[in-house]
């Protein structure tokens, strides 16, 4: 994996995740199965032997915290540089800020909130094989909403589950069209010249841009320099590169001229084959044209390639960018994607730290996790939930489909269902929480029904 630099965009204190993240807990450190979410990306990169990383964090404070955690956890495993950038500069802005650090031929950009087992090496290899200017990882869009509670309305799903509209060539390796953000809900506008070049375009709505990109460094830097209004990689830079691929505006270094494009999808080649069909009828015309066409080589079309690597359906791929996603990912990491968590599961298909204490007649079901130092009283029941470190849980407590972070106190007779409870929360007796997606930090709650 020579000459690939990795930039992890770890974000800051995203507003979208408002009560979950805070100054103390930046987005990168949100726990997923009791590990910071960033650790999933870092270990994924490590598994592809990508060990030189730049982690970009928004905000100085957040950067300090993230840096502190990384140096503690990965001191002798990874070579990580943490860079702080101002808040709200967007992903493009964050890259502009670290652009001077980039020297390698290609840059791999990964979002810090990605929880996946798709090898980044595969994306990088696709990128190199095609000599693309950008290669993006596409994965099957998750069906959102908790699968078992049935709380999200069915009719909503059709609309909600659409993340991107992508256009691919018949081999599914070239990315020919992408709509992101607000574009997705509009009518699909496909460029004719691109369709003409490939002949067949596969348009799909079931794929999601997973925010892992391999860029040719020079191209990335050019685009960031020239287009200073670009704010987001996903919504500006990538769509821009995709739609200008037959008429490249970026400077020529390292780019393919039409002539050396071996794929046969570029116009001049089609044009030659088309001519050859007519050769026997008008041989003279054929030769004239071949002789005349390179008359103005500086006019030759410059093209660049945008590629896609599509993760297979069996791979897990999700981004922690909403509260719903937070509970989904937590559920999946101890559930269907349990190989990601890095823990070994017991025969009951759950993880109970040896130091956790369970009262009598307390049951912990499968796909649960109980971290170190947590105590549970008698007759409790835990199903499909994650309980953090050093939590104190009284008797007769039911916890279903929930995430309970660290140092939470839950008194007797509480019912927690489909909820997220942040660190240091105190729930007094007989609190009922149902589908209450977040519960603020350090708040404590008396007997109430939410």
């Amino acid at each position: 994996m020579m000459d690939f630099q990795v930039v992890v965009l770890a974000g800051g204190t995203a507003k979208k995740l408002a009560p979950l993240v805070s100054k103390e807990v930046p987005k990168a450190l949100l726990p997923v199965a009791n590990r910071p979410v960033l650790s999933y990306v870092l270990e994924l990169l490590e598994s592809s032997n990508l060990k030189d990383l730049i982690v970009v964090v928004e905000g100085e404070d957040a950067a300090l915290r993230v840096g502190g955690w990384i140096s503690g956890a990965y001191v002798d495993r990874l070579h990580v540089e943490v860079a702080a950038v101002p808040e709200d500069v967007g992903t493009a802005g964050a890259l502009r800020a670290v652009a001077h650090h980039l020297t390698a031929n290609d840059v791999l950009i990964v979002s810090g909130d990605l929880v996946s087992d798709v090898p980044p090496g595969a994306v990088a290899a696709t990128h190199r094989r095609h000599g693309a200017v950008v290669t993006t990882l596409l994965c099957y869009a998750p069906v959102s909403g908790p699968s078992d509670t049935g709380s999200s309305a069915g009719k909503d799903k059709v609309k909600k589950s659409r993340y991107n509209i992508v256009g691919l060539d018949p081999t599914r390796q070239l990315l020919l069209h992408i709509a992101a953000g607000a574009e997705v809900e509009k009518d699909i506008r496909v460029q004719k010249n691109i369709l003409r070049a490939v002949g067949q375009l596969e348009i799909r709505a079931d794929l999601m841009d997973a925010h892992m990109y391999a860029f040719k460094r020079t191209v990335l830097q050019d685009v960031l320099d020239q287009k200073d209004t670009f704010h987001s990689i996903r919504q500006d830079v990538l769509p821009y590169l995709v739609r200008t691929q037959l008429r490249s505006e970026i400077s020529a270094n390292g780019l393919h001229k039409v002539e050396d494009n071996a794929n046969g999808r570029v116009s001049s080649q089609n044009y030659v084959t088309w001519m050859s069909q007519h050769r026997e009828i008008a041989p003279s015309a054929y030769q004239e044209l071949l002789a005349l066409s390179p008359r103005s080589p500086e006019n030759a079309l410059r093209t660049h390639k945008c590629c896609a690597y599509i993760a297979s359906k069996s791979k897990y791929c999700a981004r922690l960018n909403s509260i719903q996603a937070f509970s989904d990912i937590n559920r999946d990491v101890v559930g269907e994607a349990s190989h990601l968590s890095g823990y070994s599961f017991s025969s009951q298909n759950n993880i109970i730290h040896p130091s956790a204490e369970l009262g009598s007649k307390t049951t912990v079901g499968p796909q649960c996790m109980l971290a170190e130092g947590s105590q549970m009283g008698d007759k409790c029941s835990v199903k499909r939930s994650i309980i953090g470190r050093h939590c104190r849980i009284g008797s007769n407590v039911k916890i279903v489909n929930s995430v309970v972070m660290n140092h939470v106190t839950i008194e007797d007779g509480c019912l927690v269902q489909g909820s997220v409870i942040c660190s240091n929360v105190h729930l007094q007796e007989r609190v009922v929480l149902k589908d209450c997606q977040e519960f603020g930090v350090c708040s404590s709650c008396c007997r109430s029904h939410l």
Partner: protein
Amino acid sequence: MAQKKGHRSLSSDDPEELARVPLQAVLLADSFATKFRPITLERPKVLLPLVNAPMIDYTLAWLESVGVEEAFVFCCAHSQQVKDYLNKSQWMKQPGTFTVQPIESHDSISAGDALRVIYNLGVICGDFVLVSGDTISNMSLKEALQEHKERRKKDPLAVMTMVIKHSKPSSLTHQTRLGNDEILMAIDPDTKELLYYEDKTDQSQRFITLDKMLLASTPTLHLHNDKQDCYIDICSPEVLSLFTDNFDYQHLRRHFVKGLLVDDLMGYKIFTHEIHSSYAARIDNFRSYDTISKDIIQRWTYPMVPDVQYFGNCSQMKLDRLGIYKAPEVDQSRTAQIRAFSLIGNGTAIGDHSVISNSVIGQSCTIGRNVSIQGSYIWDNVIIEDDCKLSHALVCDGVHLRAGVVLEPGVILSFKVEVGQKIVIPAYSKVSLLPQPSKQDSDEELEYADANSGVVESPSITSIANTRNVDPVPDSPDAEHSDTSEVGISGVGYIWSTTEGGHEEEWRHSIAPIPAEKLMEFCLSAHTDLGVSNQDVNSLPASGELQLDSESTGFDDGEDYKDSADFEKEVEATFQRVLAGVNPENVILEINSLRLSYDMSHADCAGSLFYSIMKSALSAPFSSNLSFGNLI
């Protein structure tokens, strides 16, 4: 039979009943178009010979081969001729399972009208094959029919299956090798349902806009511009009633298919069936006539090739090496050459030193000495006198070319036209004995001439010398004058002025291959186009404010290309005037001032001049003996 008729109304519901219904076909023996004018003023398109057999024979032979039992031939224009032909042919006589029934109508002006007439007759009782009489195919319908029937069982709204075939249009001219415009289709890859169809694409539009709802029911769709519509449809009886319900549906594709796709109330669905190895194509214009003729000669349509007897009226052709077909009685001079991929009909005589290549010659033609025929189609009883030159021309029955006639590429000579000695018919001309009807657009859909409609002043062939300025290739002036005196004696016919598309578009559908300059032009304009299109591309509202910066980069670029292309055109035009006889001194001045006004360098100027010289040298290889040296 009686039982079948009794159950007609119920038959579509019961699959068992369906199975017993004989396979029917509707053959439209009228194209409802004017593309083959002036020829179709005198003879219906389906009876025009294609490699010496009427087109309709190919279609009927194919229908018979795929197991159609009843074929209804819908005749409209020249219906008597079609009926007479069918009555004489073996199609009506043969006792087998294949019956042919003509249906006659005089007031139909479109395929929609035709289907409404057929609906009113009530002869269709099950799924039927809908083709037009100019379809050449050797595909097997078994699979497509099977698919159609199975879909119908599951979903009664699946009313039609369209046959499509892979064919990539040229990236420069955006037309297929059949001369059709590119077609955009969106197809669901799993169900093969057709979701979008666009055959008249707006070239100025750089985007295809698909309704977002298309992706609501399916996560994936394939957008194609590399498929060709074979115009072979398997239809359910509902199709006929749909045409009756929507009385404004005229065109099968433009109205019916699009109408169904847009209308989501009724929910009717159209599916596609792609064929891979078999042949299916429709003759829509002169270019497809040329392409399909070549395909037949090169045996892509096997078994429908000249030397296989697939219908009775085919004489015994013999296939020699290099794809040369010869009828048994050809009187060929020892010194005459017949080159590859040619066909010579029965009773044709070819004189000394004549050369024929890539051409089809009909029956009982007389070809004189030193005649060169290249890429042309000569029908029956044509007389070509000595020293004629024909390239990529279509010559109908009974035409008489006197000595020394030159037909430039793309010329169409309709029935019994006579051309006087040493006349050069300019490229893409159409000559007919009938004058050109004036109101082109009002009866656009009609194949036959409206006898009462006015007649425009068509130049008769005697005045051909005056129309010579249309001729793109300047000939030596003295030859032109010598023509004029002799034309009046023997020429008969009107030269049609070019129709709606104008001369500019004529090359698209002509028999002649696309001229090199045209392709060059496209090559250049493709560059400028893309430059300009970048504005378009960038004005796509993304989240960032892209408009501002795009103006500065994309637009400048485009402007630049435009300038240089303009300059080249100007220089070329100026240079042409030297050839036309303007004093070279003046032209030098003009070109210099052009260079200054466009702010071009000497090198650019010399380059454009060189280009113009080479180009004119190409187009008029023998004509000019001017020396250009003093210009540079």
